[in-house]
């Protein structure tokens, strides 16, 4: 009964999405306020029905309704409740439902926080989002219905893939989708502007908070995914340049470029067309990500479904969205005008150069991700592009952007003089070069790559600090008071840039100083890894809610003194008859100790992975700082002031 209710809600949501798009666009075309208001109501109704469908599916998981095919293939009555609920997005159909529900959520947010927008513009924005929603709802209803019944029902479900039975599963997919789908709002703003033919600083001011919000979610979502991979996959990597990871990283890179381009368009009315193009591109890449993950062209932890028909549908949807948007862009671009002019050395030119670098980086990632797929699709052979390609290419491509990060925050708009800039930054440069050369010597190993990485991190951090210091000098009052008193958007930028520095620091130190050892150990053996003693005390057996586990017992010492006790597990999930490694990690500010059990060998010996990873937590701390910077920027009162003023105006 409940699943049928969910199915019905989906059909109603489909109708309402059609109504949302139809009424909004018709209303905008005739400048008819009533039609446009109907579009808004339809959008809100669509959210309600998507919500009902989502909750219905959740109920089916809660109640272990194995007559629903999707529930039977992704859950099991022995699965703990929180994982049963997370299993809603544990497979293809549910993920798509999460996608549309998230889209409906963003749409409702737009209807609530867009009273200040001109009515026609707002209608076109909602109309565009309605069309996207219509496309995805059609896909769900016709090609991936999560409510499909299986008669007769089975007694027990097939269980959720053990890899996904993890707290990360509760957090990572919804947050990532909030990011992906959030860019549909930005896309809607771009389309509405192109349709209306007005592209101005005001448009950029409207678009900025939405872009930042989507970007914050995407940043956090990628971070959670990376942490999850680190402790769950059992070999201590935090980024694998796996195609699915790249699929989320590409919109992030372009989204980052977009945030900076929007700043220029708002402040200086410059490179508007570029900004609009980036807005279209970001959402297209988010869709491409969905296509890559959901079509089954990729095989990875994330790609559950292998159904070419589904892939084809998303490909058509992708083609429609990208093709339509780019056609509109080509038609309208010549009328938009170029906007504010700027000197060859200026904040604008530096931000533009940074943008170009970010796009070039995206291009290299895309080449490595899509080329093997093309070859395979054309039956020209099977190849794989390994992490070494991305490692050797990505860092050098990004170098100019990292250098510009320090320079651009000091450069004035319109026109800057390079010698003056460099003069102001000579101390920053001197100190960061000296420290980058000396620090590796203190840490015990000097390589050019470590020094280069440290130089970038120190350069970005030092220039951010000097920028804050210069601002504070001009103000009166105590340090705390003045720091808090700085504009929120500026604070956000500084925190995000410091996040990049912390991130680079973490990556450099992990890559430079990590020690990984695969060993064979018998109970009583002690292994020395990077100064730490790892003593294997033995194993014991234990039972979890839906698995059996062999738990290893390790005592870690430093100079003979005990540091911690670690208990890595080898689990065997009963329902799916699958083994899983659960690594044991002792995290710290300066280092992580990481142990994973391999497999039992002759006698009582085990193969064991012992890792010491210095500063690895800094990687995610840096990413979360970037997200926090975005949140700070969102809190900038000028967005709120404008909103409330506009609301009073319409009321």
């Amino acid at each position: 009964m409940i699943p049928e209710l969910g199915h019905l809600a989906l059909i109603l949501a489909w109708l309402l999405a059609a109504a949302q798009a139809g009424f909004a666009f018709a209303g905008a075309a005739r400048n008819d306020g009533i039609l446009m208001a109907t579009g808004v109501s339809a959008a809100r109704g669509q959210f309600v029905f998507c919500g009902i469908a989502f909750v219905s599916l959740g109920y089916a998981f809660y109640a272990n309704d194995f007559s629903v095919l999707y529930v039977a293939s992704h859950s099991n009555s022995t699965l703990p409740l929180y994982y049963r609920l997370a299993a809603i997005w544990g497979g293809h159909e549910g993920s798509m439902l999460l996608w549309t529900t998230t889209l409906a959520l963003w749409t409702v947010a737009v209807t609530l926080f867009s009273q200040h927008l001109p009515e026609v513009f707002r209608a076109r924005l909602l109309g565009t989002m309605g069309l996207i929603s219509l496309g995805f709802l059609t896909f769900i209803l016709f090609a991936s219905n999560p409510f499909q019944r299986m008669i007769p029902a089975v007694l027990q479900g097939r269980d959720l893939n053990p890899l996904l039975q993890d707290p990360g599963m509760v957090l990572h997919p919804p947050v990532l989708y909030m990011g992906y789908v959030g860019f549909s709002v930005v896309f809607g703003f771009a389309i509405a502007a192109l349709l209306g033919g007005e592209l101005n600083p005001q448009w950029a001011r409207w678009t900025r908070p939405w872009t930042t919000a989507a970007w914050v979610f995407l940043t956090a979502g990628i971070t959670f995914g990376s942490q999850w991979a680190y402790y769950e996959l059992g070999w201590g990597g935090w980024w694998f340049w796996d195609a699915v990871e790249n699929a989320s990283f590409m919109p992030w890179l372009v989204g980052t470029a977009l945030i900076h381009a929007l700043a220029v368009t708002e402040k200086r009315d410059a490179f508007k067309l570029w900004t609009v193009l980036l807005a279209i591109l970001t959402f297209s890449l988010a869709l491409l990500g969905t296509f890559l993950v959901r079509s089954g062209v990729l095989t990875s932890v994330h790609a559950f479904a292998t159904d070419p028909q589904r892939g084809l549908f998303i490909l058509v949807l992708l083609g429609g969205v990208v093709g339509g948007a780019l056609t509109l862009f080509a038609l309208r671009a010549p009328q938009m005008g170029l906007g504010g002019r700027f000197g060859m050395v200026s904040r604008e030119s530096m931000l533009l150069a940074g943008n170009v670098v970010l796009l070039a980086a995206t291009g290299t990632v895309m080449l490595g991700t899509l080329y093997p797929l093309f070859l395979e699709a054309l039956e020209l052979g099977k190849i794989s592009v390994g992490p070494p390609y991305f490692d050797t290419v990505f860092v050098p491509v990004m170098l100019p952007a990292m250098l510009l990060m320090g320079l651009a925050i000091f450069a004035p708009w319109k026109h800057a003089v390079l010698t003056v800039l460099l003069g102001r930054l000579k101390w920053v440069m001197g100190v960061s070069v000296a420290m980058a050369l000396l620090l590796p010597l203190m840490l015990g190993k000097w390589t050019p790559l470590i020094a280069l990485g440290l130089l970038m991190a120190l350069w970005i951090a030092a220039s951010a600090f000097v920028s804050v210091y210069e601002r504070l000098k001009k103000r009166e009052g105590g340090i705390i008071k003045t720091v808090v008193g700085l504009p929120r958007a500026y604070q956000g930028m500084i925190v995000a840039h410091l996040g990049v520095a912390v991130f680079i620091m973490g990556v450099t130190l992990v890559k430079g100083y990590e020690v990984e050892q695969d060993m064979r150990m018998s109970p009583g053996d002690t292994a020395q890894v990077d100064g730490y003693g790892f003593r294997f005390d033995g194993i014991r057996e234990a039972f979890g809610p839906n698995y059996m586990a062999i738990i290893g017992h390790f005592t870690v010492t430093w100079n003979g003194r005990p540091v911690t006790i670690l208990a890595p597990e080898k689990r065997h999930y009963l329902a799916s008859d699958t083994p899983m490694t659960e690594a044991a990690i002792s995290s710290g500010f300066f280092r992580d100790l990481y142990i994973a059990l391999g497999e039992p060998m002759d006698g009582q010996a085990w193969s064991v992975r012992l890792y010491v990873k210095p500063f690895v937590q800094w990687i995610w701390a840096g990413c979360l700082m970037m997200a926090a910077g975005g949140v700070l920027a969102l809190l900038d009162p000028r967005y709120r002031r404008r909103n409330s003023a506009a609301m009073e105006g319409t009321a």
Partner: protein
Amino acid sequence: MKARHKRLAFIAVGLIALGVATALVLDAFRSNLVFFYTPTQVANGEAPQGGRFRIGGLVEPGSLKRAANSLEVRFVVTDTAKRVEVVYSGVLPDLFKEGGGTVVQGRLAADGSFHADQVLAKHDENYMPPEAAEALKQARRVQTTVEVE
């Protein structure tokens, strides 16, 4: 005129930088491509000697041997037509087992065995690595054509 010259110089420098970057990227790309071969292709000598490549297939049941006091393992990867002996030192993935699909990456040694530096296994029970599935498919195709002849 001066502004225009400056702009032209700017564009020229940009294009040169872009060209150099593209050349470097493509070079790195080419040298990091890893090609895939089936055990039959390896047996026929089609795989590159000395270069890194991947082999996919099934782990032959009963072929897995572990060294007495190191992490070295030896096993045979087969596409049911031809076999390749693989040597690997390290921890095998969770889902690696005899009779299951696998993909190994590494180089051919002089004695004809394959020294792997990476071993991949399927993600779950119903999933076969596409490379392994492809190797089996090709071997089957060859066998049926042989039978027809």
